[in-house]
């Protein structure tokens, strides 16, 4: 293969990360501090996810990387190539064929299975950070299960705007205990957080790992009179016609015409190959 250790990281670093992952699984939603290493890619570009993936991958894995739901966005390509080079593993763009999926900002549309693992890249793991910038304070708040401030913030939104104005990185309560940042996924994806696969979250710059085991109860924070709503653009995909997928809005011309397309490129492609056609589907296939 090459001069790197399998999956780049040295074994001692992997052990340190693996121990953090186990503690994270044992206390779902709690952010475990770990001695994040400097990776050969910048902080903020997925170093946390990359370190978690490096610690869990085996040579038999089939690895998929998405950014914004797409396999061919530049940073996804770059991370996929990194693991092809340093771990020599097989990669795929098909969600169903992947055993490990590293993602930034999306959960795939297809339901993940028991035998799959999803690794999230996390920029700011602390859901309370924008209410209280101090780690010393937020740590105390988690220990005391003191989340009133978060509810106050959400409620202030409602009184000001008539709705909760958090559209992504929407906070959730994990198994009735810890409030967790699900990473900047759109709130459309929040209901999928209750899934059959293992979910691991890595924040490299902030040196935190957290986890959600399969079938863990995840509740998006809300109020009785203002319940959580998973929203998306009120359109169908213009390529595959899907009405149930999260959509990207693309500006098509100077006149400001738009099209809406699935952000999950594999979902869109597999629907199209199964014969589904959206409003502009044929035109684009031409």
């Amino acid at each position, binding site marked *: 293969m090459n001069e790197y250790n399998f999956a780049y990281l040295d074994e001692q670093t992997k052990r340190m990360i693996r121990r953090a992952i186990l503690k994270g699984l044992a206390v779902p939603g709690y952010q475990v501090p770990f001695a*994040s290493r400097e990776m050969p890619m910048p*902080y903020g570009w997925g170093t946390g996810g990359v370190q978690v993936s490096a610690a869990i991958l085996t040579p038999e894995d089939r690895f998929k990387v998405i950014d*914004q739901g*797409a396999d061919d*966005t530049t940073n996804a390509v770059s991370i996929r190539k990194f693991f092809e080079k340093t771990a020599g593993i097989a990669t795929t763009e098909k969600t169903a064929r992947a055993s490990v999926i590293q993602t930034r900002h999306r959960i795939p549309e297809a339901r993940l299975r028991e035998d799959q693992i999803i690794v999230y890249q996390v920029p700011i793991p602390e859901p309370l950070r924008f209410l209280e910038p101090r780690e010393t304070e937020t740590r105390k708040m988690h220990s005391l299960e003191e989340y009133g401030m978060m509810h106050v913030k959400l409620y202030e939104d409602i009184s000001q*705007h008539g709705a909760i*104005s958090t*559209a992504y990185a929407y906070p959730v309560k994990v198994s009735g205990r810890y409030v967790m940042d699900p990473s900047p996924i759109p709130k459309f994806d929040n209901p999928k957080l209750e899934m059959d696969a293992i979910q691991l979250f890595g924040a490299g710059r902030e040196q935190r790992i957290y986890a959600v085991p399969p079938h863990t109860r995840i509740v998006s924070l809300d109020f009785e009179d203002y319940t959580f709503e998973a929203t998306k653009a009120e359109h169908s995909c213009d390529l595959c016609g899907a009405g149930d997928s999260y959509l990207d809005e693309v500006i098509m011309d100077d006149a400001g015409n738009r099209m809406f397309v699935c*952000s999950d490129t594999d979902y869109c492609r597999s629907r199209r190959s199964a014969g589904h056609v959206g409003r502009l589907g044929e035109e684009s296939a031409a």
Partner: protein
Amino acid sequence: MYVAVKGGEKAIENAHAWMAEERRGSPDVEELSLPQIREQLGLAVNRVMAEGSMYDPDLAALAIKQARGDLIEAIFLIRAYRTTLPRFGCSCPVNTADMACDRRISATFKDAPGGQVLGPTFDYTHRLLDFKLAADGDVPLAPEGVPRQEATPHIMQFLKGEDLIQDEPETDAAPGDLTREPMEFPTTRPLRLQSLTRGDEGFVLGMAYSTQRGYARNHAFVGELRIGTVAVEMDIPELGFSIEIGDIELTECETVNQFKGSKTEPPQFTRGYGLVFGQSERKAIAMALVDRALRWKELGEDDQGAPAQDEEFVLSHSDNIQATGFLEHIKLPHYVDFQSELELIRKLRREAQDLAKSKGAAE
């Protein structure tokens, strides 16, 4: 049309090839060699070693060349390399009292044993562009003196005799290592100093400057600034004694700061400490000022709410590799988050308009 937003592998490859070409610049101009960078851009090399936390002038020179002179990018290359190196052990503490000083000045005493040695400094140069350097001018050799044989004592020890400066507690405890354990607040002075010495020079400078302008002013004098080489020794358990593994160049700064005394301590001077790889005196002085400002709690001083007194704030934001990574990541695609905000704003506007309409109809 839609396909155009897909970047992909080819775009990345082409971008990298273009960058490599730009790095080389015009092929009509001779290529820079690493020895040229190491010898002639020594202060850049020093900064890359200090903030990269790795003492290797040749690799630092390579990093500067590869980074096209972008020092933060060069520091990043060094950090990413450093983290892959196996750790064989820890050196013994270096003894800066044994430093072979190239430069040694004190602002607090006119003269002291060891003397004031200006050394190779920009101080007192007139900042006039030297057009002779634009041509390949030969530089006349500098006059040489007789090197001092005996050790140069630290200035601070002369204050210690009178008990005028606070004693630093001696300890044999192994300090933590911020590259091996996640930082936890409040932290300890050894970890603060580690963080500051690899912290961004501009950030540490700005923090230090803020203390001079009154944000937790602590009346610092440069008690001593020394630059020179020290031997690095390592204990070899198999041998039962320590051996010298090499020399490194260091800049050390000790500031003398006023302290009015507290309930438990008599009035005396206190100090701030800076120690940096290579000749990096701006950084070492700035580090000493920030170190002193961060010691307010230990010295029983007031929390003035100044940024430089705020350990979590200073240490969480001093690392330029963390900062630049996170800053620059906002150029990565964020269409998914942006789309969700877009939908939300549209929805809120629609509701506001509906509300205004129904109000208008009612009136």
